[in-house]
């Protein structure tokens, strides 16, 4: 199963913000992290990731700088800003609403247990 394009696009911002909330990171690592998180089901491309990062930077949600960690190449690292944290919180509220609504309609009260296993509160 591959997740549809629209859904990938819609979830892109909260995913990237969430990953950057864990720690500052660079493009390739972010893409790998998304792959890990979704077990390869989210089909992300560089054409989605980098313009998105640039857009978030323009909106002030993230800031970037070129760093060279010892023994590594010079890389452009992205870090979440205050505005980015606020945006992440807002996104989480909206997604929680969407997920609640979906759960309400798809799951009877009986088998709700399987989904509550997904932690709603991340490490933000």
């Amino acid at each position: 199963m591959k997740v549809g394009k629209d859904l990938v696009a819609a979830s892109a911002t909260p995913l990237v913000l969430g990953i950057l909330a864990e720690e500052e990171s660079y493009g390739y690592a972010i893409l790998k992290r998304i792959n890990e998180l979704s077990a390869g089901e989210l089909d992300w491309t560089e054409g989605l990731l980098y313009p998105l990062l640039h857009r978030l930077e323009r909106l002030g949600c993230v800031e970037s700088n070129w760093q060279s960690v010892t023994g590594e190449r010079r890389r452009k690292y992205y870090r979440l800003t205050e505005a980015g944290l606020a945006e992440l919180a807002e996104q989480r509220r909206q997604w929680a609403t969407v997920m609640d609504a979906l759960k309400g309609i798809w799951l009877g009260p009986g088998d709700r247990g399987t989904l509550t296993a997904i932690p709603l509160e991340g490490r933000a």
Partner: protein
Amino acid sequence: MTAREGQEELEAQLAQWRQYVGRRREMRPPDADELEDHLRGCVDELVEAGLNADEAFLIAVKRMGSLDDLAREFAREHSERLWKQLVLTASPAADARSRRDLRVMAFCAAGAALSIKAPELFGVSLDNNAAAVFYGPNVSLLVLPWLAGFLAWRRQARRSLIGMLAALFALGAVAANAYPLADRSQSLIITSIHLPIALWLVVGLAYMADGWGSSRRRMDFIRFTGEWFIYFVLMALGGGVLTAFTTGAFKAIGIVPQEFIAQWLLPCGAAAGVVVAGWLVEAKQSVVENIAPVLTRLFTPLFTAVLLAFLIAVGWTSNGIDVERQALILFDLLLVIVLGLLLYSISARDPLAPPDLFDKLQLALVVSALAIDVLVLLAVTGRITEYGTTPNKAAALGENVILLGNLVWSAWLLLGLVRRRVPFTTLERWQTGYLPVYAAWAWIATLVFPPLFTYA
């Protein structure tokens, strides 16, 4: 293949890939750096998994998807990049160079602005009557050397060229001031018109630097002239808005800045504008599409239609052309415009393209202009033999003959081009080869005409 060889090949492949990315306007060098880092990350991982370097590179590039798709995504986020910006500098070296250009340009523009006011120190104020007599022939001498200087500096012109430029400007100064020209004489007006043309072609020498023998460089100068003119007009429009606003705003608080505007803002602004326009053309050379050829394309059909309508009207009513002096000048200007339309479409034409409808249209334009001009010339020659000649008539007639000569041969070459007998470059060479004729004529009109007509 050893690991080192593999690494070298990988670097070569990455360099090539960067070249492809570099051609995309949507992606700037920092983006390319970022994407390259991504590719390297991907390659490293694949190499760790046991692939060799070039296999890994192929897969990594393939995963990234086509550059077209990638560029499209970048364009959606950075649409402003598709609009070329003036301060677009690719590398730190180019950045430093353009900043140095900017400084020298500012210096030259300030120099031009001050030069225009400098005569005031010697009592030649812009508002008294003597001013018109002095500024008329001298204004180009005060301003154009700064533009030539800027261009010569930018081209790092040789000493001999700089010496030649200085000598020509000095010759211009002599022509403008050594002759005893009366205040309202025709010769004064003729010098005022022709000296700027002669000096503009001297600027051309600075622009072309060493390449003034080459047809391509001359064509570049023709392009430069057209773009310079357009920038200058645009800046004049902006200056007009600035002037209107200054006047209005200060009037509102009871100060009338008439004096300041007429004495300082307009003359200094125009003088500086001459240099700034030259700098803009140099700086934006590769940044905007040339606008002169676009205007040419728009107006060639319209002018052709008007000229044909005029010819038909002349034939229909069998009215002769009333040849006053103004009429002669008007038709001179018409030839200049036709020549300009021809020049700027030549300057933008792909030399290898086969003749198309536009070339035929141009032929029609030139031929109809020629037909009109022949009618005018016949009438004028009649009048001159009847009433004798004046400097004005002689100059107008001489210009007419020069332009006519150019256009007749151009028409012939255009006909050959349309019939695929003559290659396009012949036409281009003809036009660029004609530049010295204009220069010679402008110098003759300023240097020889006044004594010839006893300073009338």
